[in-house]
Structures are given as C-alpha cells and as structure tokens.
C-alpha cells in the first residue's frame, strides 16, 4: 500500500466526476412550511423574551430581599426577641396587626 495521500486523492477525483442530483424547484409546500415556522418562531421568541424578563425580575427581587434581611438583621432579631430600639407605640401598632 502507498504511504502517501495518493489513494485518497485518486478516490476524491473519481468521486468529483459523479454527476450531481438534479436540483429543481423546492418541494411542494416547502416554502409554506418555512414561512409558517418563521412566523411562529417570531411569536415564540416574544414569549421567550417575556419569560426571561420575568425570571430576571424574580432573581433581582430575591437579591434585594436577601440584602434587606442581611442589612436589617439586628433590628429584625431584636424585634423578634422583644428587645428593640423601635418606639414602643410603633411596636404596639405592629403587634396589633398580628391576630
């Protein structure tokens, strides 16, 4: 067997001589299918955009909530333990809200 690229070159040259299958017009209904999918893809992408915005909004809200809890941890834990620097009447009015 030869050790160079000769077998492949010879094969590729012979393969290139093979006639190509005839290319006529697109199959019946092909353009209609493409256009229908193209149009539905537009609607789908709008929903996808809205969907991704919703998830991003939820993620941002979760980060803000976690940040608020972290920053106000002392006040919150003191309030739960009854040891709070909040004014007495404010504590009272919040307590009244809880049944």
């Amino acid at each position, binding site marked *: 067997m*030869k050790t160079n*690229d000769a*077998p492949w070159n010879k094969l590729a040259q*012979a393969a290139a*001589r093979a006639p*190509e299958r005839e290319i006529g017009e*697109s199959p019946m209904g*092909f353009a209609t299918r493409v256009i229908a999918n*193209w*149009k539905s893809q537009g609607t789908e992408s709008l929903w996808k955009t809205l969907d991704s915005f919703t998830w991003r909004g939820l993620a941002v809200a979760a980060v803000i909530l976690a940040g608020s809890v972290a920053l106000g941890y002392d006040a919150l834990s003191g309030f739960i333990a009854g040891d709070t620097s909040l004014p007495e009447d404010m504590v009272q009015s919040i307590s009244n809200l809880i049944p």
Partner: protein
Amino acid sequence: MSSTREPATDLSGLVARVVAGDEAAARDMVERLWPQIIRIVRRHLPRRSSEEDLAQEVFMKVFARLGQWRDEMPLEHWVSRVAVNTCLDALRWDKRRPELRWADLSETEAEVLDNVLHDESDREAGDAMASRELAHKLLQTLKPADRLVLTMMDMEGRSVADVQRATGWSATLVKVRAFRARRKLRKAFEVLEKSPGRAQLN
C-alpha cells in the same frame, strides 16, 4: 402586513421586505436561495438525516439573522456561511463515527477501493458513483470539522480562501485541519486493507 406580488429584482430591497415580515418576499427568497442551500446541505448531510429538514433549519436561521446581513458581503456568501455552520452543527450531533470495514462495502465500492490502493497507474479509480459513496463512507469516519474541510477542498475543489469564507476559520486552521484529516484518512485506508473481509477476498 403587506403581500405585494411584483417580482423582487433588487436584492437589498427583497431582504428589507423579508425583515419587515413580508410573506411574499419571504417566499421569493426561499425560491431564490433553494438551489444554493440544498446543494450545500446534500454535500454535508449527516447520516440518517433528512435533507429537507436540514434545509428548513438553514432557512429558519437565514430568516432569523437576515437583519444582520450588510451588503458589503454578497448575500450568497453570507447564506453559504450560515448553511455550512448549520450543517456542521448537525454533523456534531451525530456522535457515532463507525470504523469502516471491507465487509461494509458494496461490490463496486470494494473494486474502487482495490483500484485506488493497488493500481499505480494513472487510470481512473472506477465507477464515479461508487467512488463518491466510498468517499462519503470514509469521510463519515472523521470528526465533523475534518469531514467538512475535506469535502470542500478535495471533493468540491474549493480553495483555502473559499473554506475560510464559508466557515469563518483562519487560513492556518483550515490547512491544519485538512492536513490532520488526510492523515486520519491514511489510517482509515490502512484499517480497511487489514480488515477481515479484505483478507477473505485475497
């Protein structure tokens, strides 16, 4: 939505109408690009894939990205790049690349192979259709990018610059891939020659 029926002569105008959502223009565009896209799809079609499904995928990508096309680049080149990259993605999905053995070949393919391996003369390899089938079977044993580069350069006779334009790869990358792919093919020929079916024939 407009649905004008006059023939689209101006390509940029046609593209603008498609981008604006004109269905008649989109239909014109499909008919205009069909021969170019189906030719590319047929050359790079993965095993067990439908050429019509893959062509449809290419058209979906063309329509989705048509707004990005600028007329500094001919539309045919831009479409060709989208089509080639879609085919490459499809080839990457087909993970299985079975090793080719003599027993997998038809009688005419085996004759062609025998001819290219052992006939030192400049005689033609043999039946062109069988040669193409055999070449495709050998190319299927390669990685998708290697297969693509050899299909374009060796089967279609395209230049490095053509492959660069169609894939977006650098010239060095195209040359390195072609070199490695040919080396792998040499090994594939060796494996074929040593495979059991061949031994039985001798």
